[in-house]
């Protein structure tokens, strides 16, 4: 599982209103993703992620209040700007998602909170 250790300062993602977009910390990339289910629920979840200009992506999820992340590593598939991610959220609550990115523009990362209902 990839590292996510970024501050949880980003607003909780909106649900049910099309792709969620987060700008990476240094502003090099814009991460856009949709989820299934939407809104997210405990259990299996599928993400479709697009990041224009990125060539590699890693993903992590952390539930800070409980002090733990995903019990099983997420399955990431895709390359060059489009990925799918399958993971299992063990429980409801606020999860901080992290995307670590690399591409021609350089390395960067994006993070934010989502509510798993």
């Amino acid at each position: 599982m990839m590292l996510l250790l970024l501050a949880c300062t980003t607003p909780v993602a909106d649900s049910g209103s099309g792709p969620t977009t987060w700008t990476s910390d240094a502003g090099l990339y814009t991460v856009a993703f949709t989820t299934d289910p939407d809104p997210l629920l405990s259990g299996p979840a599928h993400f479709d992620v697009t990041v224009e200009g990125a060539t590699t992506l890693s993903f992590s999820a952390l539930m800070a209040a409980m002090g733990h992340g995903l019990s099983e590593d997420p399955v990431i598939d895709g390359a060059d700007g489009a990925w799918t991610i399958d993971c299992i959220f063990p429980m409801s609550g606020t999860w901080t998602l992290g995307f670590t990115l690399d591409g021609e523009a350089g390395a960067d990362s994006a993070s934010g909170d989502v509510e798993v209902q």
Partner: protein
Amino acid sequence: MMLLLAGHAWASACCGTSSDTPAVLARCDEVGVALMVGGSQHLARWDDNGAVVATSDSQIQLTGTLAGAARFSPWLQASISIPFIGTWRSAGELETSAGGLGDLRAAARLQPSEAWAHMIDPYVEIGVITPSGTGPSQSDDPLAADITGTGELLGVAAVGVSRTPGLWPWHIDARAIGAPGATNSRVEAGAGIGRRLTEHWLLTANGSFAQGIVEPTRRTALGLSTVIDGGPRIRTWAGATLDLPVSQLGRSLPVEGGVSAGVMFVR
């Protein structure tokens, strides 16, 4: 024999409320061995804003705890408790169950003045919670049903005062649990008042509040318990606790209900 007031402890942020009554010796007891069983269920959750919201997962947790206590002097007793935790969880079409040894607890309780015991009985407690259970970072169950502990070594410091004799026994206590940087560091406060129904039968209403220090978690619970002296060497108790499903009385934790029962043999 004096009846002791049932207390309430919070197992961990992740495990939630695990109602267990600490093995505490009365002043006339020398040693004691206790067996406690309990069960709890997630009913809802407090979100990060403190609102009570529905949860899409289900959890039922059973706990069995073996505990022992020994008195070394009129003012010093020590105890150890060994919990075993089993958890069933479901989310969507997934359903898992797991369990095992929880976090061992050891504590020393100082009761400074025997002379006050007929009026009020203050105590100071120092203890430790060891990460003998499966911590969140060690979990490999997809729904984290195998988590049985905090994964952190935590110190415990508590103070309290109780009045055991009389028709209306009561207790007030406060404790700090934590370690530098530990996610589960928190402060807790509790109080209870009982009504002695007979010489050997006590009914107690308890309230407790816990506030996370590192993470802004919060929980408020009410409980009802009964203690019955089964003779000079046997003490039994049973109780129920309910996290109050009221906005702002909790934060970032499940709302749980639980029941527990125990028996303690003393000499």
